[in-house]
């Protein structure tokens, strides 16, 4: 277990990610290109939804990432609170803009898809509303980091905000099951073969999801390295100012 915590050392983190990052980035690009081209060009229209079914390859992976990025931030925030490892707090900070963009993609594609299918861009449906609140939490989280000058204080306060926001991240995932009402249908992916979408849509969707997950990993590694360097820069400048 000791070896895992070695990565909390900023130097070790940067050394390791130097080797990993290019591979993850290339693999994510390949999977995204293959998945999206497959989904867009080589899958049939749905008998009910027509060609709008092609939006699934963007909407479902981005919605999954929107929730799971916040969950990753929850874990790294808890690590910060318990063990005070700076890299974990900085990883949460690095992940937030990615999660925000994923939530925005899910909201925009959902609205575009909803208009022809439901006859409206927006409804105060449990899942849609909880996603909007999650988006606002992302904005608030990013703003809080920017607003506080002291890194440790910012990490403490944003960790608390992250704990509170986790309720809405979970709610976004399970809102449909809790209330069983509103316009949004239940989970797209299911282990139950009867409930799951047809294989012709399912397999390219899985490729897209894998591409989004790897894109997130590549970006969060890159951005965490940047945050580590920015923090070191602030510390060196502060030391220089103090003489």
């Amino acid at each position, binding site marked *: 277990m000791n070896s895992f915590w070695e990565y909390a050392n900023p130097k070790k983190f940067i050394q390791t990610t130097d080797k990993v990052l290019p591979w993850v980035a290339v693999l994510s690009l390949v999977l995204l290109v293959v998945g999206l081209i497959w989904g867009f060009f080589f899958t049939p229209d749905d008998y009910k939804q027509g*060609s*709008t079914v*092609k939006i699934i390859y963007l909407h479902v992976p981005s919605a999954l990432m929107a929730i799971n990025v916040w969950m990753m931030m929850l874990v790294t925030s808890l690590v910060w609170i318990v063990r005070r490892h700076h890299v974990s707090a900085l990883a949460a900070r690095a992940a937030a803009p990615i999660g925000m963009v994923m939530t925005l*993609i899910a909201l*925009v594609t959902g609205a*575009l898809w909803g208009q022809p299918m439901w006859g409206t861009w927006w409804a105060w449906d449990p899942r849609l509303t909880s996603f909007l609140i999650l988006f606002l939490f992302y904005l608030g989280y990013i703003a809080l980091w920017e607003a506080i000058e002291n890194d440790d204080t910012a990490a403490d306060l944003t960790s608390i905000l992250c704990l509170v926001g986790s309720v809405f991240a979970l709610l976004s995932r399970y809102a449909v099951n809790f209330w069983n009402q509103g316009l949004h249908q239940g989970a797209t992916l299911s282990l139950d073969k009867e409930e799951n979408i047809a294989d012709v849509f399912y397999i390219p969707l899985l490729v897209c999801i894998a591409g989004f997950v790897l894109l997130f990993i590549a970006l969060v590694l890159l951005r965490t390295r940047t945050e580590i*360097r920015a923090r070191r820069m602030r510390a*060196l400048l502060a030391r220089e100012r103090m003489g």
Partner: protein
Amino acid sequence: MMPDLGKYADTVLSSYAVSIALIVILVVMSVLRADKVKKQLDVIEKKLKSNG
């Protein structure tokens, strides 16, 4: 060989355009900031080293 998207062409194409644009902006901004911060840190470290 563009697929026939029928009456939903605008909806599908705008979903792809917005999503890909947002992802590209995120990636480009992350890479540019990474590069900028790395260069700034290198300058500061060199300066501090030369000052002893």
